[in-house]
């Protein structure tokens, strides 16, 4: 597999150097792997810290800036960052108002953020944590690691970020983040596996003419494999899986997310089908976002995320945001 890299060992550091050059409004600590808003800590404001394995760009580093995250900790490709990074990030953004960790529900992320929270509290930083677990493809039972955190992470980071920028206190920002997660559900579909730089070949074998339903964002295979389906059929299946799990009464935010290698042309076509299913099922749509936001390296495919919102959450969603990956209203 050809890749635009030097050597696999330096892909994350190389990307951080490039990010630092492109975004002087961010402080990129390449050695310690922390990306921070240059104006942090902002007086009186709750700090929002997230992080996770690299390979999901623009998540999380591309969502650092006014109106969204205060700092992000990139790990190795598909590998949770270490507690040292998270503690450093928390210290950099804490104004005394406390810090919220936004954690995708994967065993590694949860364990490292838990350790980091303890260490940060030892340093006198007040820390709250919100777990994102929106993926309906995983049965949430005693027999799995629980639902994965996927597309809803963007909704949580944007909406909690707006609440924090308004100066809302930590308990309130945490409650908003939790509410967004609880109201969100996602389902992903892969048309091809992805290739990690370390392995250099696809992480699993997906034959031509087949697709994988219920895919995660770490190159791990999904729950079921079928013969290739049309955009219309995939939308019926993915939105159907979500609506089996929640029955929205309020309008929803829609994220039609590309996994990295699917052209926008196809994503917009797929969004038309998603909107058709939602209309048929009587689900009103408040806002829609289409693009590559929570990716899985060079995987082709898509994920759909729906989030039920009320007027307050919609107001926070519409609030100005200025980050490398998401910006409006400024």
């Amino acid at each position, binding site marked *: 597999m050809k890749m635009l890299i030097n050597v696999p060992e330096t892909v994350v550091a190389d990307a951080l150097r490039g990010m630092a050059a492109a975004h002087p409004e961010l402080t990129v600590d390449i050695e310690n792997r922390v990306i921070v808003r240059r104006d942090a800590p902002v007086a009186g404001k709750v700090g929002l810290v997230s992080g996770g394995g690299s390979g999901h760009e623009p998540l999380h580093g591309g969502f650092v800036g006014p109106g969204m995250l205060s700092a992000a900790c990139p*790990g190795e490709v598909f*590998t949770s960052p270490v507690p040292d990074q998270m503690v450093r990030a928390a210290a950099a953004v804490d104004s005394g108002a406390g810090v919220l960790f936004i954690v995708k529900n994967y065993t*590694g992320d949860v364990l490292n953020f838990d350790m980091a929270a303890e260490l940060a509290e030892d340093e006198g930083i007040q820390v709250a944590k919100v777990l994102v677990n929106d993926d309906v493809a995983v049965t949430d039972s005693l027999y*799995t690691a629980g639902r994965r955190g996927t597309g809803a992470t963007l909704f949580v980071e944007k909406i909690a970020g707006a609440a924090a920028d308004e100066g809302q206190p930590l308990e309130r920002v945490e409650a908003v983040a939790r509410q967004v997660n609880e109201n969100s559900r996602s389902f992903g579909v892969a048309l091809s596996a992805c290739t990690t730089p370390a392995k250099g070949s696809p992480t699993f074998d997906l034959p031509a003419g087949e697709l994988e339903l219920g895919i995660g964002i770490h190159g791990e*295979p999904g729950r079921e494999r079928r013969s290739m389906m049309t955009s219309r059929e995939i939308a019926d299946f993915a939105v159907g899986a979500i609506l089996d799990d929640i029955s929205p009464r309020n309008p929803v935010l829609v994220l039609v997310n590309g996994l990295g290698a699917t052209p926008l042309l196809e994503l917009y076509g797929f969004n038309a089908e998603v909107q058709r299913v939602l209309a048929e099922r009587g689900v009103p749509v408040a806002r829609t976002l289409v693009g590559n936001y929570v990716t899985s390296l060079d995987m082709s495919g898509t994920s759909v995320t729906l989030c039920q919102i009320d007027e307050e959450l919609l107001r926070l969603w519409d609030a100005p945001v200025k980050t490398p990956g998401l910006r409006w209203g400024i």
Partner: protein
Amino acid sequence: MLDADFFRRWMTATAASVEREAERLTALDSPIGDADHGSNLRRGFTAVTATLEKEAPDTPGGVLTLAGRQLISTVGGASGPLYGTLLRRTGKALGDAAEVSEEQFAQALRAGVDAVMTLGGAAPGDKTMIDALVPAVDALADGFAAARAAAEAGAEATTPLQARKGRASYLGERSIGHQDPGATSASLLIAGLVEVTEAAGE
């Protein structure tokens, strides 16, 4: 009796076998994980070896505590906190003694394995590193070679299991038929004990 040098050499031997087997670990992690177990552990144990050369703690407990902390700070993912906790808690259980008996070590390692089960929430049969570590600790009274054999048998016995923890659990029944990469790397760690003993006996 086992001294600090024995434990330092245990870590060096494990680093060497992780280096040797890194590609196999990553290959095992591909069908049921995300294809990085070998490269992550290699990064961690390389850092452990470097730190132990620089700081050289003079007690068995000091060596393992430092090694565990280094894994937590360099590996990431789930294996960083889990392996880091295993070594750190084993080291803490050994206390400040300059030398420890094999029996004391067996007790300490059991405390370490218990801490891993508490942290990760896994029990035997969940298709994780625990499936190699628990049999190894149970067999440790009969010597390092018995522990190695038990760990390797435990790792192989994960193949028919359905994963209930970690990333492989997302696959449900499709995780059946693959040997668990975490149990496999845990058996390398236990095998390191034999390698050090054999090297010392030469």
